[in-house]
């Protein structure tokens, strides 16, 4: 994509040395994102989606993580590469330019402080003002995210809120400084579906209001279909496919995406046939297989000559306009197996 991109991630590699060996959590991750746009990162547990977002936010443990690549924020004042910036620089940006919300709103809020104090703290870190200005700002935010009676509830503690309301508080806290980038890591996974619908609607409204870029990390392909503009599918630490949301669902180009889409039942269709499955299970990130990490589970690897799939790692390449895939199959082969 072009220069109007707000965030550019280039060849991001994140790995952790452990007793059992080097865990390659994310390798060779490249994507970019404009303001007002939503990119979904989809993958199963251990596919590297959360690790990548923590690295973008600078929340990884610098002493215990090997990290390389570039994370570039294009700010009005000029471009800034985050991985090589000092911790102080990143800390100034975090909470102001970029913010994050997590899956479990109970464990991400401090149980000993009122929600108002916690939202005010996030504001006071980046703005000049006293406590009562902070509280005033907290009330405005609570009202914006749809908490009834914000003037009274600003003094309540996290345990006095339901799960959905707590997630609203988290969103209020994340947005208090009007950030340009919001990373939402499984924001609705812990919530019931009726509450999930409310929170997704809120996020969409907030995106319009603040013209934010959103990275939505999720495993739920239904949520992606509803919410995302573009999708990045990850498997075993690599992005195996990136496409606009329509192309990904109607013209998937990677056998893993194809398998995922076929294996989920739907509420709008009654099916009585067996579910299609992807055989086997994801590989260990310590002992990644030779060649393509998906090859051991891929039903189409025989179509590629010379055992290429089990010997050579495919590069991310153009499948169509704005549509990338990491697969040795030719364009025609993919169309024929789809």
């Amino acid at each position, binding site marked *: 994509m072009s220069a109007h991109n707000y965030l550019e991630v280039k060849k991001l590699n994140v790995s952790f040395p452990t007793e059992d060996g080097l865990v390659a959590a994310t390798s060779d991750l490249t994507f970019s994102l404009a303001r007002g746009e939503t990119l979904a990162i989809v993958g199963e547990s251990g596919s590297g989606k959360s690790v990548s977002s923590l690295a973008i936010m600078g929340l990884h443990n610098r002493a215990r993580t090997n990290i390389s690549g570039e994370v570039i924020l294009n700010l009005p004042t000029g471009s800034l590469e985050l991985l090589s910036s000092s911790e102080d620089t990143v800390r100034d940006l975090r909470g102001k330019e970029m913010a994050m919300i997590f899956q479990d709103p109970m464990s991400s809020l401090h149980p000993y402080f009122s929600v108002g104090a916690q939202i005010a703290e996030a504001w006071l870190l980046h703005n000049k003002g006293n406590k009562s200005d902070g509280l005033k700002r907290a009330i405005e935010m609570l009202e914006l995210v749809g908490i009834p009676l914000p003037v009274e509830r600003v003094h309540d503690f996290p345990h006095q809120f339901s799960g959905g309301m707590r997630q609203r508080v988290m969103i209020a806290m994340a947005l208090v400084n009007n950030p340009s980038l919001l990373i939402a890591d499984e924001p609705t996974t812990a919530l019931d579906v009726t509450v*999930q619908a409310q929170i997704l609607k809120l996020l969409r409204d907030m995106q319009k209001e603040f013209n934010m870029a959103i990275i939505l990390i999720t495993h739920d392909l239904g949520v992606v279909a509803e919410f995302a503009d573009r999708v990045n599918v990850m498997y075993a630490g690599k992005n195996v496919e990136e496409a606009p949301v329509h192309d990904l669902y*109607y013209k998937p180009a990677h056998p893993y995406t194809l398998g995922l889409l076929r294996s989920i039942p739907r509420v709008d269709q009654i099916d009585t046939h067996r579910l299609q499955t992807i055989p086997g299970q*994801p590989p260990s990130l310590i002992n990644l297989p030779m060649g393509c990490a998906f090859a051991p589970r891929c039903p189409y690897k025989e179509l590629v000559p010379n055992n290429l799939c089990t010997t050579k790692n495919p590069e991310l390449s153009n499948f169509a306009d704005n549509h990338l895939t990491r697969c040795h199959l030719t364009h025609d082969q993919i169309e024929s197996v789809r």
Partner: protein
Amino acid sequence: MNQPVLELKNLKKHFISSNGVFSRNKTTVKAVDGIDLTVNSGETVGLVGESGCGKTTVGRTVLKLYEPTSGSIIFDGEEITNFSPRQMKPVRSKLQMIFQDPYSSLNPRHTIGSIIASSYEIHGIHPEGGVKKAVQNLLDRVGLNPEHINRFPHEFSGGQRQRIGIARALALRPKLIIADEPVSALDVSIQAQVVNLLDDLQKEMGLSYLFIAHDLSVVQHISDRVIVMYLGKIMEEAKTSQLFLNPRHPYTKALLSAVPIPDPEIERNRERIVLSGDLPSPANPPSGCVFSTRCWKATEKCHQIAPPLVEISIGSKVACHFPEGN
């Protein structure tokens, strides 16, 4: 075929909690408040609802892990409501459970062989060909390598652990398995494998399932009949196709419309009902219809009189004064 394996009649389970050591006030949480439910032989009944609706309590009360407050539980033609733990022991060999979390439901210090074999030990059963042979057959049946009998739970992935849990439940050849969120902790690609395994085992062994879940798309796939619960009460009960294609209760309709469909074109163009508010506290349920506080059709009648669950067409029951469609 249509012999009931399990019948619940007006089952209630109320939890009483005191508001502090010195307080005389007691709060009653009506987790399950008078439900009727039948599971026939060879049938899968899906029990769905949001967290706090009482679906897990139903499963646990049937197994008598909780003492029912009132009502009756008839399993395999026998009234087990007031059975003592000693009387329950032989019943439990026919009535097994699969749990949600494959990490905490297997003892980390026991090999999977001894975890599965303990079912035989506890019930004093000597399977043909010996316990080891029987366990290996079970492992093979659920898609695990029989040679891994001496491994420990931590050596397996989440999906494999859930298969171990299934093997354990199958060991005594039960009639009914209560599966409480058996696939919700699993990744999408693994979920489909376990759902298919449950399907195959049912055909092979004539099992019945009470499938408790919040994920409506999985319930749609696996169930013959579906029961929707809200705040301890049944809102609607119908054949799967009926319930999903033509929901009659407003709550069912709202629940279905809230589940995102993995198809951008359909998802972005469909009518969506976003319910306001949260589930009320089961300790302080609304008067009249329990759904009335969030229902867009609620009238004064709904706030005052609780609608009974009535049959509105064959096999289809709904508890609503103003049901949807027809």
